[in-house]
């Protein structure tokens, strides 16, 4: 999983496409303020939702959520 440290939210979501695509179709995040919607879209993938991922609503910024997500979810390499 790609560590989001030092990345912008769009850089991180772009680079996560590689890892997520085998579990579902991801959209391109264009507005950084809408990171929560992007997060919800990938939490809807069954493989990911089964791992009890963190909900974005509990985080005020994307980076904290991304850290929690990378700790909670195993994308199988």
């Amino acid at each position, binding site marked *: 999983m790609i560590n989001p440290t030092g990345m912008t939210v769009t850089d991180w979501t772009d680079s996560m496409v*590689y890892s997520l695509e085998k579990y579902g179709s991801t959209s391109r995040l264009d507005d950084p303020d809408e990171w929560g919607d992007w997060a919800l879209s990938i939490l809807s993938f069954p493989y990911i939702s089964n791992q009890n991922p963190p909900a974005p609503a509990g985080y005020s910024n994307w980076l904290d959520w991304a850290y929690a997500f990378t700790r909670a979810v195993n994308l199988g*390499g």
Partner: protein
Amino acid sequence: MVAQPYIIKSLPGIKRDGTRFENGFYVDGQWCRFQRGLPRKMGGYRRLSNQVPQIARGINTYNEASTIHILAGSQSYLTQFELDGNGTLTVIADRTPSGFVANPTNLWTFDSTFDSVGVAPGSYIICHAGRNLAGIDNEIKTSMYWGLVHANTPLVANSAPAVSGGVVGLYPYVFVFGSNGYVAWNVANSPNDWTGTGSGEAYVTGEKIVAALPLRAGPGNAPAGLFWSLDSLIRATFIGGDAVFQFDTITSQSSILSSQSVIEYDGIFYWCGVDRFLMFNGVVREVPNQLNQNWFFDNLNYDQRQKVFAYKVPRFGEIWWCYPRGSATECTHAVIYNVRENTWYDTVLPRSGWSAADFANVYEFPITMSVDIDRVTNQYKMWQMEFGYDELDGTAVNSIPSYFQTADISVVADQAQPKNRALRCSMVEPDFVQTGEMTCQITGRANARSPEVTSDEHTFPALQDITSPEEQVLFFKETRREMRFIFKSNVVGGNYQMGQCIAHIETSDGTVLG
């Protein structure tokens, strides 16, 4: 009114698009880059060889056993230059394949691969000279050539299918690609076996594939690669089985200006489209450019579009796109995207320009190939970039002119407190990491449509060369309603990194016309 200190500082980058007055970026510069948001002179360069037989149309660098093998392809030749770790040229070898057909439109692609099953296992250079220099969509098919990296003998034809595009190594496979979206790959680890089990071919899109690079892939899906066709971006992913590779279209609404315009920087791919700069980082995005997009696309010589090439200077976070400007038929200028600073600037290339360049990875200095003929050898020159501060052309040491010009300083357009007043500058306190003397000029105008008036050059020495207190600062008596500063270095050994320069400025009269 008492003069107030003003920090001479603009936003990093050189803005060419739009008017000079409507921006906070530097407005002009030459051989100047940005680091930590501040301008500094680019590095010098030294001649590695003046025995490149023709203008290089593609180069490749390969490092092995403390030797850098540089292959330069031209219309008639494939020449290998070998450098030791100190950058000293040790060998020049003609590796032109036997029976190679010279053609002025030959444009080379290179890569390397490993052969573990052939009669001479080892690392091999693979290359292809497509007839693509005059037309990116050319359909003439030509052969791929290969040969051991560390040898000096001519390359030989490989049994790969002839193609019009080029070649790329996706270890342990080699791909050739060309017209009608055609790709073919060999048997893994066997670069001369294109018919055995594991090899294959496919038509993966409608238009010609013109460029390709390796792409990272997850376990079980490696290797992977990206293929740029004239209108789309295709990803190849290893899946094994009978199909071996899977191809999926990432976008069918892309474009590419030149087959040499694609470059990878830290796992992200950047390239020139026909009307914008693009990148791929999992998804395709436009690279924002508000500084010189029009400057580039409005002045590019489209007839010579295939000569546009990209190379990188990772030390400073830079991607250079070199291009023929105006009526030039070789690359005379470059626009530079600084990934680290997230800004753009540009420069005129040295002398008559360059035709190819590469960053050698193990060797920290990029290699460039110029289009100037050496008067002694009547051949062309190869340069090592980012070396010292000067141009070292054999025994000749030449200064490299470098300058930058700040954005306008004006109280007329002050957002908070606009005043209809000119500014008078009485003193400048230069602050530079500096070697060799520099000059400062004040330029500007009364309004955006009045003539530019530029002061004389005021010279200031480097810190260690100051002999009297008066040399610590510069004294001016210049008044402009829109005022800019030009700092310049053009002496042998000259170098600079700007710090926090201070201008002593007071408001003056309100004369609008100039």
